[in-house]
């Protein structure tokens, strides 16, 4: 598949929770090899959208297409094995397992799974190095890790499933400025390794620098889509979310 082709297409997706419309007719495309930002105020439906894509929620309307094939409503484990990996906003690690074993789980059951446990362990160890997870903490229980370590572990575990597409739900949330810079570099590195990346983020300075294109959600509906500079100057986005004009660097 060539660069620039549509990798994941969201088509008129609607999701209701009782009377609340969490997603309202949302459509956009994620292109092969791109780093797309998804922003919007709290409660605008960003995480709900990821949950729809990964099969945790079944949408009330619309379709999700991976490489042109429909994956709407498939079970989460099947979608994972088709090449969509994700991380959680609040890390959902297997807290009673060691850090390394968390990544091993992704390797054993994901898209690139093999029966050889030893090989999967080596792969997990390599991925922990790739995300720069401290070697001395590998055997620590995941429940005892710091936030930064947990975020890195979430990324390593998702990458262990061999995804073509990574959906990263606020990988920078709660980190300090130094850690944010490190995490931004890591996400770039992941994209450069050939993954298509969708990233949800609230840290505007980071997302404006990082994303090539941005989709904005507000109250469950898409209100804008475009390059960071266009988004930063979009009146609707400013009113709904940004509150003020922010500087977006020219590429």
């Amino acid at each position, binding site marked *: 598949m060539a660069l620039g082709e549509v990798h994941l297409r969201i088509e008129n997706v609607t999701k209701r929770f009782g009377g609340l419309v969490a997603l309202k007719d949302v459509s956009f495309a994620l292109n092969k090899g791109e780093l797309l930002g998804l922003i919007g105020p709290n409660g605008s439906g960003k995480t709900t959208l990821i949950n729809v894509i*990964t099969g*945790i929620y079944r949408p009330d309307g619309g379709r999700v297409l991976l490489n042109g094939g429909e994956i709407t409503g498939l*079970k*989460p*484990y099947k979608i*994972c*094995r088709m090449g969509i990996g*994700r991380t*959680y906003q609040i890390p*959902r*690690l*297997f*807290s*009673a*397992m*060691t850090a*390394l*074993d968390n990544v*091993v*789980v*992704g390797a*054993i*059951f*994901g*898209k690139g*799974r093999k*029966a050889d*446990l030893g090989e999967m*362990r080596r792969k997990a*160890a390599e991925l922990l190095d790739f995300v720069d997870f401290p070697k001395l903490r*590998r*055997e620590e*229980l995941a*429940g005892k890790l710091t936030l930064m370590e947990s975020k890195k572990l979430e990324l390593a*575990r*998702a990458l*262990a*499933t061999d995804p073509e597409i990574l959906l990263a739900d606020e990988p920078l949330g709660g980190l300090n400025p130094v850690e944010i810079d490190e995490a931004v570099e890591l996400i770039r590195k992941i994209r450069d390794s050939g993954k298509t990346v969708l990233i949800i983020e609230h840290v505007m300075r980071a997302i404006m620098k990082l994303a090539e294109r941005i989709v904005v959600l507000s109250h469950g509906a898409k209100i804008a889509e475009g390059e960071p500079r266009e988004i930063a100057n979009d009146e609707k986005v400013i009113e709904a979310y940004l509150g003020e004009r922010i500087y977006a660097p020219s590429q």
Partner: protein
Amino acid sequence: MPKLGLAVGREGAMKRSLMLIALALTLFLIPPIVEKGYYINLLAIIFMYTALAQSWNIISGYSGYWSFGHYMFFGIGAYAVGILVTKLSFDAYLASVLGGLASFLAAVFLGLILLRIKGPYFAISSLVMAEILKVIAINEEWLTGGGNGLILPPRYALREFYYAILLTLLAVTAIAYAIKRSSMGYALFAIRDDETAAETYGINSTKYKILAFAISAFFAGVAGGCFAWFVTYIDPYSAFDSTLALMMIVSAVFGGIGTVMGPIIGGFVFTLLMEVLWVSFPYVYLIILGASLILVMRFIPDGIVERLVQIVQLMGKVGIKIPARI
């Protein structure tokens, strides 16, 4: 929380500790040759409770789905043997294995329904299911003999029961160990920690839960089947006895759930404690037992094994090396 013991570098230690367990259990082949009567009977009952605790551990300890109704599989095994032996003249040994299979199949079917329910609701549902089966055993007289029960011909005696149940204990322990070291172990422990996350990382949780439930049920069924031909009489109240669930859960928790060693240590210590207390203080033994359980829950909630591991590690720090990792 107890560590998984799955990670790199621990295999050697785990293998050694498994060999120690196997060796210790193999030594139990000897007693019936030199002794018969009370102590052999006591040991056999300890084996039975321990095997049941280990089987419970495979589903509940590993995946976190606490089956309060697990005695239903003991009952299904017991009745399968009762029916096969009395109505179809099967050999008791063969019938015990078929009793395990009956429990296995029942668990697959019931698991499809029950394992959709999570947490305390699963625990209660499994308990209710077991009670339903008891009522069926009471009412379907043509098959089960109803409240009168089934009388089996005395074919095999204490020594045969002793060996059969020891073999069951060895087998369920070996399987529990093998599962823990396999990808299935990773799946079950991931489900225990966070089932939704486990699904997101490629785990077909329904498949692994049902498989664990069924394997677990198989051994509980075999134990129930052996019990049936040993006591030569079963009725709904002894076959579907909720005290058994209590014994399984308490033994496993006492020793340390999710570890292979835990249910073994817990089963031995707890059954023995119960017997000693019953003999010494027949009127107040349940009070003492209850009080000691509360103390264990209060001070070592993750079980004896985890505490032993800590002691071993502490000894390692001050220079005393014991290589076993349980």
